């Protein structure tokens, strides 16, 4: 039986539904020594900003039960270095590229999207409207993330939409009461898809020193620990919107990934588990194919949102 794993995510054709979480795969090349990264449905880049960024001071990460907190603070090479040094490698190696972008204003996002499209350096844009690590936790309170405020989501999405014809995915935050609201706002503003979830806000404190472990105090929680939360949010969003969803949060294997797909995701991203097992995303691809074979599923798209309820 030949299995068709191809999915179309809002115009982006992926040969299989598996990409990687932004920030957990750098710019692709780094992990090519472990497996042929072009075999993934797509490579998602670290968030790119207009200027290179140094990010937060260390310590920037701490392990937690079945997960980790990070407060990298979007250290990245900047769009120019990406276009010059990173994108060519991805292109040469025939990778499908989801260019993840981060800006300080709708205009910056629009500019980033425009540059990526103009240079042919991405096949789709993922706008990170939900990075928890760019605020000072001492003073921040309430809706500090664009993705927490549906009106802002709409405003930002419209600006980016106007700047690019590439498939546009909006990356949302789990730190909301009702993900459907931000999902609907993005959809209304012309997004072609949603990426969720970004990390949950968390803190680790070292009782021995009485200090927060992260220099930024607050970090983003990722890993298998958050997977049930992520599946729930994907299910919520999928019932609210018509545009496709890239689901992520704690995916380690095909079984995890299939939960997202059954809950309504069209594609999935493997995030920080890659740090433990660099070829985890490839495992997911292979495991999905096995699953389909075992269950007589001819095309993976038959499983999207196929969770059965009594």
């Amino acid at each position, binding site marked *: 039986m030949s299995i068709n794993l191809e999915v179309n995510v809002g115009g982006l054709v992926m040969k299989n539904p598996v990409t990687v979480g932004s920030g957990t795969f750098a710019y692709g090349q780094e992990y090519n020594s472990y497996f042929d990264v072009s075999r993934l449905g797509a490579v998602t880049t670290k968030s790119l900003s207009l200027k290179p960024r140094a990010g937060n001071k*260390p310590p920037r990460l701490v392990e937690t039960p079945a997960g980790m907190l990070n407060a990298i603070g979007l250290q990245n090479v900047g769009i120019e270095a990406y276009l010059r040094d990173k994108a060519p490698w991805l292109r040469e190696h025939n990778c499908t590229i989801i260019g993840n972008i981060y800006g300080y204003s709708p205009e910056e996002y629009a500019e980033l999207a425009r540059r990526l499209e103009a240079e042919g350096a991405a096949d789709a844009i993922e706008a990170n409207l939900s990075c928890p690590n760019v605020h000072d936790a001492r003073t921040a309170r309430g809706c500090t993330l664009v993705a927490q405020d549906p009106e802002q989501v709409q405003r930002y999405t419209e600006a980016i939409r106007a700047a690019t014809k590439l498939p546009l995915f909006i990356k949302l935050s789990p730190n909301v009461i009702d993900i459907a609201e931000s999902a609907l706002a993005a959809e209304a503003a012309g997004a072609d898809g949603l990426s969720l979830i970004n990390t949950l806000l968390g803190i680790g404190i070292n009782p021995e020193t009485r200090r927060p472990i992260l220099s930024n105090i607050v970090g983003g929680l990722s890993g298998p620990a958050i997977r049930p939360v992520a599946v729930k949010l994907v299910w919520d969003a999928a019932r609210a919107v018509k545009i496709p969803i890239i689901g992520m949060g704690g995916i380690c294997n095909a079984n995890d990934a299939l939960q997202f797909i059954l809950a309504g995701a069209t594609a999935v991203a493997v995030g920080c588990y890659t740090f433990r097992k660099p070829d985890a995303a490839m495992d997911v691809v292979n495991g999905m194919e096995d699953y389909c074979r075992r269950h007589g599923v001819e095309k993976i798209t038959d499983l999207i949102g196929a969770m059965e309820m009594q």
Partner: protein
Amino acid sequence: MPYILDCEITSHQEVAPGHYRLVAHAPEIAAAAAAGQFCMLEVQEGFYPFLRRPMCFERIYPDSVSILYKIEGEGTRLLSRFTAGQSINIQGPLGKPFPLNGAYQRHIMVAGGIGIAPFPALAEAIIAQLGKTPEVIIAARNEDLLLCEDIFQQMGCKIHLATDDGSVGKKAFASEVLDALEPSKDSIVYCCGPMPMMKATHAVCQQRKIPCLASLEAEMACGDGVCLGCVVEANVEIEAERMVRVCCDGPVFDSTTIHWESY
């Protein structure tokens, strides 16, 4: 190119209170590894702990590698439970090795505590590749925690001991011992240990205008340069390039590149 392999543990022993040496059969990794590089170990199956643990190579044999480690927390405690015959998943070699430069006559290794770990491999490399016999300063809290003395003795290295409590050797900081050795411009220093100790060693080297290579530590998630979690501040003018990754820009750095004032 790093490998990820299940490797059989050929020996695992407590060498000092709370300190262990683990030898694993890992021909591919051993063949690719060089002194100063490290590996990432899976200390238990599943998600506890979630991340691998970085450990540098203590020695690199033809078919195996050894690591020397101290029980620090849960991960190393679980690591210490492995027994010979069991298999452990090792990712490596990772990071940049110590650069070897035959131009120097005197090669001095300065180790604080478990910071001794990379030096047996380095000493061996200096002897084999440069034909020089390095000196080593071994500093520890007390006599019981002085590690690897026998190894360096066998290699014919000159050994300088220092303990915090004076139980053996000098009651002095490693950097003070280094200073007392009066290294001059034919000398190169390698150091590994707690940040304050490396900072002080760097200061001595600066004053004496001699090069110092420091092997740094940082919390790591990926070990591969991807997560940007393991950075330290470097002396770089360009703000955006100030954060360097211990895992792949290091762990060995020319000490002048590190912004020691932050530590």
